[in-house]
């Protein structure tokens, strides 16, 4: 998929350049993009630059408010909150990206196959999606995490398995619309195989909706991870994530409110940015949306 997109930018660049120009006019989306880059860089580089380690305890200091040595204060064990936030951000963002990738892969392949072949296969496949929609999936994910869990790979798979359904529906409807177009008939008359037609001809042409929906899936996935961590089922110590930090903060908020406020603000800022960017991309790529 990606090489095809890159080729397009080099050659005609009308669609993608246009989209970029439109996106640039959307202040909120630009703000979101900037904030995301800043947060991502800070999480990547920040912990190395800091003089504090994220597991470094200072029991004498204990929980202290923001100061010059500890910009966002320390937790009850005297650990620097800023460094813990940034390392936790690596996990949260990492889980967000990886689980979205799982959901993206399953959803795109499933939706593309159902939409392309149509007929009975399509009916069976989409019926399966419908039934899975009607199941209490979160209940299963919680059971999985309790029983097998506290294992980060399983976390990706479990979240990915919940989130692919909508992607499959979107891709299917797009594929069904695209496969009737003339250039697909041309590809077919040139004798190309089905796999080549799906992956080289149809998918690159529906990248827009896929990108938009992917951007909007990441915050959903990060929410799920934080939700599970908040229940004590997600990421386990000594690793930490924003969900874990929010949970810890909520337990100690009466005396040490900054332990809740800073992680909550960081997490919400990231979700805001992702949602703004997703909305902006939707307008920029001119995807028919349910918004209006």
């Amino acid at each position, binding site marked *: 998929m990606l090489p095809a997109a890159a080729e397009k930018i080099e050659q005609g660049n009308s669609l993608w350049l246009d989209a970029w120009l439109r996106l640039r006019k959307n202040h909120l989306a630009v703000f979101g993009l900037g904030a995301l880059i800043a947060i991502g860089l800070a999480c990547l580089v920040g912990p190395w630059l800091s003089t504090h380690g994220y597991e470094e305890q200072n029991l004498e200091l204990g929980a202290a408010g923001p100061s010059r040595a500890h910009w966002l204060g320390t937790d009850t064990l005297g650990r620097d909150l800023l460094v813990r936030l940034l390392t936790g951000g690596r996990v949260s963002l990492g889980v967000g990206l990886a689980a979205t990738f799982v959901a993206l892969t399953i959803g795109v392949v499933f939706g593309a196959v159902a939409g392309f072949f149509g007929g009975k296969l399509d009916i069976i496949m989409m019926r399966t999606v419908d*039934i899975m*929609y*009607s*199941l*209490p999936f*979160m*209940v*299963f994910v*919680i*059971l*999985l995490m*309790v*029983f*097998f869990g506290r294992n980060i790979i399983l976390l990706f798979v479990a979240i990915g398995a919940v989130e692919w359904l909508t992607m499959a529906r979107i891709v299917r409807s797009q594929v069904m619309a695209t496969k009737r177009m003339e250039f697909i008939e041309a590809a077919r008359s040139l004798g190309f195989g089905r796999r080549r037609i799906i992956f080289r001809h149809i998918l690159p042409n529906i990248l827009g909706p896929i990108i938009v929906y992917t951007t909007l899936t990441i*915050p959903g996935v990060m*929410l799920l991870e*934080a*939700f599970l961590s*908040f*229940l004590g*089922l997600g990421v386990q110590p000594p690793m930490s994530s924003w*969900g874990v930090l*929010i*949970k810890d*903060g*909520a337990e100690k*908020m*009466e005396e040490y*409110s900054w332990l*809740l*406020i800073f992680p*909550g603000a960081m*997490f*919400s800022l990231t*979700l*805001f940015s992702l*949602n*703004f960017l997703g909305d902006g991309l939707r307008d920029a790529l001119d995807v028919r949306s*349910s*918004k*209006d």
Partner: protein
Amino acid sequence: MARGPVRASAIPTILTTLCRSASVNQKFHSPSLLRLATFIPMLRFITSRLLQSLLALFLVITATFFMIRFVPGGPFTAEKAVTPEILRNLEAHYGLDKPLWRQYLDYLGRLGHGDLGPSFKYPNRTVNEIIADKVPVSAELGLLSLGVALIIGITLGTFAAIRRNSWIDYLASTVGMTGISIPSFVVGPLLVLGLAIHAGWFNASGWYGPADRVLPCLVLGFAYAAPISRLTRGGLLEVLNQDFIRTARAKGASEFRVITRHALRGGLLPVVSFLGPAVAGILTGSFVIETIFQIPGIGREFVNSATNRDYTLVLGTVILYAVLIMALNLVVDILQAWLNPKVRLET
């Protein structure tokens, strides 16, 4: 259609013909015949959905039953000072010493009589009792939250659609963004900190008086007000451009009447189809809300029972949730078909 006496054997054929003509061309004049003609495919639709749900429910029960058994650790492993002998007695008492397939069949047999079995962790209590005890609390929380979500969402969405690009439209989209981006487990503790601990207006936790309902229901419902207001706005905007709205206005109907009587009926269709996911979301949201506010509901019980390996209680709550969500989806499908005859009833 059929004049004179009709042979009884001909009725199904006539009905089928009616159904076809009713769905193919909409030129039906007799309302009672039309109602009859749409009733038959509706019935077929409902039965096929019911069968499907039963199959899915069976799969859920089976999958959950075997999944929790293939996990290391049992309900009695955490207990202190359990000698092998006592353990064996305990297992014999609960039938855990029988082969797994036998236990599975026993469970299904008892389930057929509506018996969910004894709890492994609460001595002398059955799962039925625990569920009957905790569900009313969670149901109250869920229904109040859904009410909050619908009232805030539909009101904001309606005003946003009528006054497009006004301050209220921007307010609605801000509320939407906030609802999506600030999760309930951040808003909840923050509100407790501000309004309960510092301002002292509410209790920080518990579920006793009416005041204890305010914060949990607001927090849980607010997250779903956002998508509902978006859907209402979108649905209304689509409807408001149509001819029948212009006709209603031309007849001299007041703007209030046009919106409430004519536009909202069609405009709320997207909201109706969102009800399924919304209730499922409120259900899972209640796990967290009940933990934050220390509400003695079934959500907290479910998470605890999973951690405690209380097999029967886990299964019981999973079945409860599955039945609830499936029944709701069915109701939503029927409602949708009833509100909008154009929705094709797929079996």
